[in-house]
């Protein structure tokens, strides 16, 4: 019998402390069994349970894109028992991955449209996956203009610097990376994500926005998009709730009748408006 609770064994092939506060660490994972890599077919927006025997599991968004090969990338915030243990683990260590889980960004429905991606802090993970996927030569031509707005408090808290620096050099994506306040050595944008959104002023016509970030960023970004004339159907968000099973049974991640782990984590704002705000 197929067992959705059994993690695939993977080896950590590389790690990187991503932020100056050392709270975020990235892990590149390779499957031990080629068949498992084959079975793990994912789409940007999905997540997986990272499984550390003896400690437990945590749901983490997949930051890599399937267009990058079989290696998976996860960036983990150090908050709980499992993530603290993970932060002590190194290249060569073996752990487990269970997934892919949840739905994904509506990449198919987004075809032919302009795409605006807004990310704050470490919520950028699955959006890194999405941008990488969209920019891939097989996909880029199916979409209109792509705008990527990403902010963090300080330069040292921005993730994936190599990637977004590269994106900034390209002419097929408008990449605006900002920090909250002036900082030494920073020559990029300064200002909160909502004000940068106001400046960039993405047009709602034939467009979709993917917005992920801390609640305070969402709270102040929302009115900006409203003012620009965006409808809640056009705004796509990704939720995080405490999870265990990851497959829609164990009962804790639900928002109304919808399970974040199975029916989400990706919801349109229109969907969320009709549900209790239990996230």
């Amino acid at each position, binding site marked *: *019998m*197929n*067992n*959705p*609770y*059994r*993690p695939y*064994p993977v*080896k950590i092939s590389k790690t990187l402390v991503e932020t100056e506060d050392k709270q975020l660490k990235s892990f590149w994972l390779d499957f*031990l069994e080629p068949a498992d890599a084959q079975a793990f077919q994912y789409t940007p927006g999905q997540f997986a349970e990272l*499984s*550390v*025997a*003896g*400690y*437990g*599991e945590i749901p983490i968004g997949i930051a890599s894109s399937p267009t990058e090969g079989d290696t998976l990338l996860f960036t983990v*915030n150090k*908050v*709980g028992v499992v*993530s603290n243990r993970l932060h002590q*683990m190194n290249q060569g*260590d*073996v*752990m*487990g991955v269970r997934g892919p889980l949840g739905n994904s960004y509506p990449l198919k429905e987004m075809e032919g449209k302009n795409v605006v991606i807004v990310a704050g802090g470490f919520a950028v993970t699955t959006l890194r996956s999405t941008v990488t996927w969209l920019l891939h030569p097989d996909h880029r031509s199916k979409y209109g203009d792509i705008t990527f707005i990403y902010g963090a408090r300080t330069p040292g808290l921005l993730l994936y610097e190599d990637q977004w620096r590269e994106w900034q050099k390209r002419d097929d994506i408008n990449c605006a990376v900002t920090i909250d306040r002036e900082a030494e050595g920073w020559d990029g944008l300064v200002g909160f994500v909502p004000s940068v959104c106001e400046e960039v002023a993405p047009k709602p016509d034939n467009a979709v926005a993917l917005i992920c970030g801390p609640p305070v960023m969402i709270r102040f970004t929302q009115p900006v998009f409203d003012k620009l004339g965006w409808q809640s159907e056009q705004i796509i968000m990704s939720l*995080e*709730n*405490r999870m*265990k*099973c990851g*497959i*829609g*049974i*164990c*009962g*804790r*991640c*639900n*928002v*109304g*009748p919808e399970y974040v782990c*199975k029916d989400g984590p990706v919801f349109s704002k229109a969907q969320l408006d*009709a*549900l*209790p*705000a*239990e*996230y």
Partner: protein
Amino acid sequence: MSDKILKKDQAASFLAELAQKRDLHAPALAGGRLVWAPLEPGQEPLWQFNNTALSPKEFFFPQTECMMRFTNAQDHEEGMVMHSEPELARERALVNMRPCDAKAFGVLDLIFCQDEMTDDPYWRDKREKSLIIALACNDPCPTCFCTSMNCGPHSEAGADVLLIDLGDKLLAKGVSDQGEAAIAALPAATDDDLAAAAEAKQMAEAAIITTVEMDQINERGLMELYEAGHWDRTQESCLNCGTCTFCCPTCHCFDIQDETQGPAGRRVRNWDYCMSYLFTLHGSGHNPRGSKKDRVRQRFMHKFKYIPVKRGGEIGCVGCGRCVQLCPVNIDVREVVRDMNA
């Protein structure tokens, strides 16, 4: 066609036959409490009893269940490889299950086994290896309200065989293929037997003294129900303990924990409950259901709105009345449904 007759004085030998390839369990009295216990081959089960204090969900969804084992050696490749637990070794027959409990497992099948991805192997294995012989209720308790919950004292859903007590004999109805096979060798019921069974059913249904309506709950939008004023009162005396969820045949929330001791480790799942503050607490400290009201509302909304919306009208309650009897502060689900439906 498939309705048979089992004489009570032949029940023990009928069950002994089943016991050749199955472990038998049935409700029994232990220390003045009604519990599920192994039934020895040749032993006659109880025919007269109220609901067991706890539901028999433990047979398919044990309160603590080892999901897999691992070697606690993290520097070694083998150390992180999980080995699933072996499957249930011997098939079993659950004898004289109440129809409401059997119905509950039919509802839970829809949750544990939703589709290809969400197909819980631990649940499925035990379900497939269990024969459920339900015993229709002829004397429902005052707390029973099954007839309001897509169920009833003679409900067949979820059972393989339904027995109906006709005095010194039982009418045996084959409900599933497995159930029909189990009773194939019994003599056929007569028209008189069928008429007696129909009368027993009618009387049992009439003996259900409390009913609740669901029409408004079904009709109203979920935010209207969610924001209703009664929740402040509903939750007032709730202790946020797990009694209602743990005795409930349809509550199915669980937690997954890793445990290690020396070189051995295991991943276990334990019953969990939505009344617990920790159930939804984020690592950041944020809690989407941070207040008692949020948690109490979740339990009832889940049963009476979320599950019906998600599972084609099935209700997350079968009206067994256990929570009514056991809640330490007597929060009565029937009153809550009436408030939701008001």
